[in-house]
């Protein structure tokens, strides 16, 4: 390997370590701890027309201290069973979680009849922060 090549690799390795350090050691602060799902206006009409409308995933992942409040909003014109609860038009429901665990709720919107909420511990170690941030980035890209 040439001296220039070795220098390039060294620079890249140092930059990679620095980047990981930034991602791993920067504390995670979130201006909002809400994870929001909304039933848009017209959903009931679309369902009545025979369209399959999936709004809530069968599994929702939350993180303690960062994003640990599930917020459901019914923006449609009719009452809806949304996740675990009945919601009137224009109503919202805000459910906080304080323990890392897996929660199962009855949910008629899913074929399994269940909705699972996985609440993960607060990522306090560098590796946990890196994993959490990469998962968030992947989720945002989807």
């Amino acid at each position, binding site marked *: 390997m040439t001296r*220039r*090549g070795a*220098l*390039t690799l060294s*620079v*890249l390795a*140092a*930059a*990679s370590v*620095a*980047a*990981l350090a*930034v*991602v791993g050691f*920067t504390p*995670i*602060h*979130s*201006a*909002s*701890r*809400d*994870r*929001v799902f909304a039933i848009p206006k017209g959903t009931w009409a679309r369902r009545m027309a025979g369209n399959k409308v999936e709004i809530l995933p069968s599994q929702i992942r939350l993180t303690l201290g960062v*994003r640990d*409040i*599930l*917020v459901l909003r019914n923006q449609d014109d009719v009452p809806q*069973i949304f996740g*675990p*609860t*009945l*919601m*009137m038009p*224009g*109503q*919202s*429901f*805000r*459910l*906080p979680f*304080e323990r890392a665990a897996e*929660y199962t*709720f*009855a949910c*008629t919107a899913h074929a399994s009849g269940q909705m699972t909420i996985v609440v993960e511990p607060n990522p306090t170690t560098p590796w946990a922060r890196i994993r*959490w*941030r*990469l998962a*968030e*980035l992947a989720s*945002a890209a989807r």
Partner: protein
Amino acid sequence: MRHTAARCATALSVLALVVSAGATRAAAPNSGPPALKAGTFDPPRQAPDFNLLGSNGGALKISSYRGKVVLLAFGYTSCTAVCPITLNTFAVARRKLAAAAADVQVVYITVDPQRDDAARMKKYLGAFDPTFVGGTGTEQQLGAVRKDYGISARKLRAGDSYSYDHSSFTYLIDRSGRIRAMMPYGHSPDDYVHDLTVLLKE
């Protein structure tokens, strides 16, 4: 070559900053600490009234309890999994509230009218707390109440017997008769004490 390395290093740094910043972006502007441990409704709606047969032998209407904070749950006396734990949690919470518990009413509506008549419910509920009130009625009456409150109840046959898979959460109804919150199954008596204390002070 050196320029390429510099560009790669810059790109990695930018990526790190994007990942750090992107993961911490705000999802919504309103995110203060929740006042209650239970999930809260905004705006709260008036609890739909009903007219059932109470375990005390009289009429059971939710509107009769205006001025009190009501814990409203659905289940059945033969339930071996969820109901005994929930009702015991209510009883412990009421004991912890001491004198303030006088303004807390537990209302427990059966999903199993075939077995749960008023006398059976009174005996069952009295084992947890004599102040608890049960409600029963016809299949049609109870079905209408469940629909109004978004409660599911599915009968599961097992040989000659049967059980129910039913909603396990509890509604918290304030002194004005509004459904303020819904507590999922499994919360501790202390969580109930916390939320009841907040609602009782209003």
